[in-house]
């Protein structure tokens, strides 16, 4: 009571002083640019006294990232232009630029660059889609029925640690090297990831939510559709992200082994012709697309599942 009375009766000058001090602090603070570059603490972090061990007090260091990229390119430029490495082992920036222009205008071995990239992406999307279509219901069944769990547990647990690449020989024996072979491989690669993710999603449901739904009159089917399914979506989405990443790696490797189209086959064929610049371009494309897939999935996740981690 007395506190309140005092603060209400506080003379004007005090507020003025306070404002002055605030603006002083503001002007003495780090500039927006320095904060963006990640080399200065923002105003909140500046007031923390414990910083070592507080991950949120570690700044982005964006300036250093920029410098690192510049340094790498400089090193590339120096190493190739001063003849430190032979072009056959690592091409010069100029050669890569020139080759990229040619690849874009003329394509590579009967296919345009976009066709190579698109066929790889298409294989991944199809494989993951099929894997999800089968894996999600399978994971749900395993999380909901002991029959399904008993039947599929040995298969899933056995297949889980086998790297998809180890299946390539068998897949080639069964399906040859056509499109079916690649899609089947990617299907298998994503199937078990999706099954396990969906099963984890089902078992992550808090029992009080299920109880609440039944007490609100929901039937078993309604509990499945309106509680267990939405509750499992975050885990399912994490599974999709993982499957996308794994399948992207797998498709490139599979194309290295046997394919006439795709980014993987492009770099393999280029290697046979000692076109190191095409190989380097292929590797950069693989990296960029893998990264873009991850970013896209994160974006989709924050759109579609905004409640993730907020239960």
């Amino acid at each position, binding site marked *: 009571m007395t506190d309140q009375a005092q603060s209400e009766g506080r003379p004007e000058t005090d507020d003025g002083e306070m404002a002055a001090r605030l603006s002083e602090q503001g002007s003495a603070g780090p500039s927006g640019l320095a904060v963006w570059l990640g080399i200065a603490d923002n105003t909140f972090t500046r007031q923390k006294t414990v910083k070592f061990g507080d991950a949120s007090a570690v700044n982005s260091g964006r300036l250093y990232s920029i410098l690192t990229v510049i340094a790498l390119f400089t090193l590339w430029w120096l190493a190739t232009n001063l003849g430190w490495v032979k072009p056959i082992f690592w091409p010069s920036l100029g050669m890569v630029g020139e080759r990229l222009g040619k690849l874009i205008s003329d394509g590579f071995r009967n296919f345009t660059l976009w066709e190579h990239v698109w066929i790889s992406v298409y294989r991944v999307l199809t494989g993951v889609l099929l894997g999800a279509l089968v894996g999600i219901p399978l994971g749900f069944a395993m999380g909901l029925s002991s029959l399904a769990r008993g039947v599929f547990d040995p298969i899933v647990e056995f297949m889980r640690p086998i790297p998809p690449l180890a299946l390539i020989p068998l897949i080639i024996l069964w399906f040859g090297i056509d499109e079916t072979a690649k899609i089947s491989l990617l299907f298998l690669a994503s199937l078990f990831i999706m099954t396990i993710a969906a099963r984890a999603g089902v078992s992550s449901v*808090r029992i*009080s*939510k299920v*109880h*609440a*739904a*039944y*007490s*609100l*009159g*929901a*039937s078993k089917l*309604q509990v499945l559709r*309106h*509680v267990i399914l*939405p*509750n499992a*979506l975050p885990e399912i989405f994490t599974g999709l992200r993982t499957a996308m990443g794994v399948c992207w790696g797998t498709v490139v490797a599979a194309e290295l082994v046997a394919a006439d189209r795709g980014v993987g086959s492009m770099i393999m064929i280029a290697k046979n012709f000692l076109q190191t610049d095409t190989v380097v371009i292929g590797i950069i494309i693989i990296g960029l697309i893998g990264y873009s897939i991850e970013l896209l999935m994160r974006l989709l996740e924050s759109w579609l*599942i*905004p*409640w993730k981690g*907020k*239960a």
Partner: protein
Amino acid sequence: MDGLRIENLSMVFSLPNGGRIQALKDVSLHLAPGELMSVLGPSGCGKTTLLNIVAGFLAPTAGRVQLNGHEVKGPDAERGMVFQQGALFEWLSVERNVAFGPKMAGKPAAEIRQTVEHLLEVTGLQGFGDKPVYQLSGGMQQRVALARCLANDPDLILMDEPLGALDALTREKMQGLVLRLWKETGKTIVLITHSVEEALFLGERLVVMAPRPGRVHKTYELPFADRGLEESPRSIKASQEFIAVREEVLSMIWEMEEEIMGRAGAG
């Protein structure tokens, strides 16, 4: 209409290691329609187990539960639940949470909208309808839980420490809301709580349970809930009469706790 009848209820949990826990022993209670009974007792005395049996989530080892003359066999929309927290559907907005029960029952959309609107107003949630529930404070979330339960118009409402996770001030406010809702709807309510004050303030009847095995220790008939709407909650809680019962119940529970500690120390 015969209310809730709990007869000679016993519950024994068999543990995986071969041990057995008698969570409830011979519990009998009767609750008339429209009555609010609060249940109090030290942690582990079987309050949640009792509520889970009445809700139909657990089958008792012995005894039976009847609501309005028929036996409780499983969960049903006639018995609504309000959990402590974390039982809201975080993928749904506030109004969709509240609409859940009527929607599952296939009620017409217009009717659902009317029910939801009314309940949001009654529980002080106007303007929050389209907010995702995870953006609300703990107190607001419990308002949603209350509204969601009421939307189904259940015969009996079971609450397991519904205000247990709230800070003291929010808690007092919410006690007022529970009291008002109870008076306005005339629902039969079983309220489990850890707070002696809350149990006394809200319960027309108070059941104090004792642990090991969980059983009814003492029952009180209380006048405070009836006065709760006319008098201010603060003045009721500060009255001589209230304080006297509060101290009696508190020391009763203290003794039980000491006994548990003593036994644990000896064992």
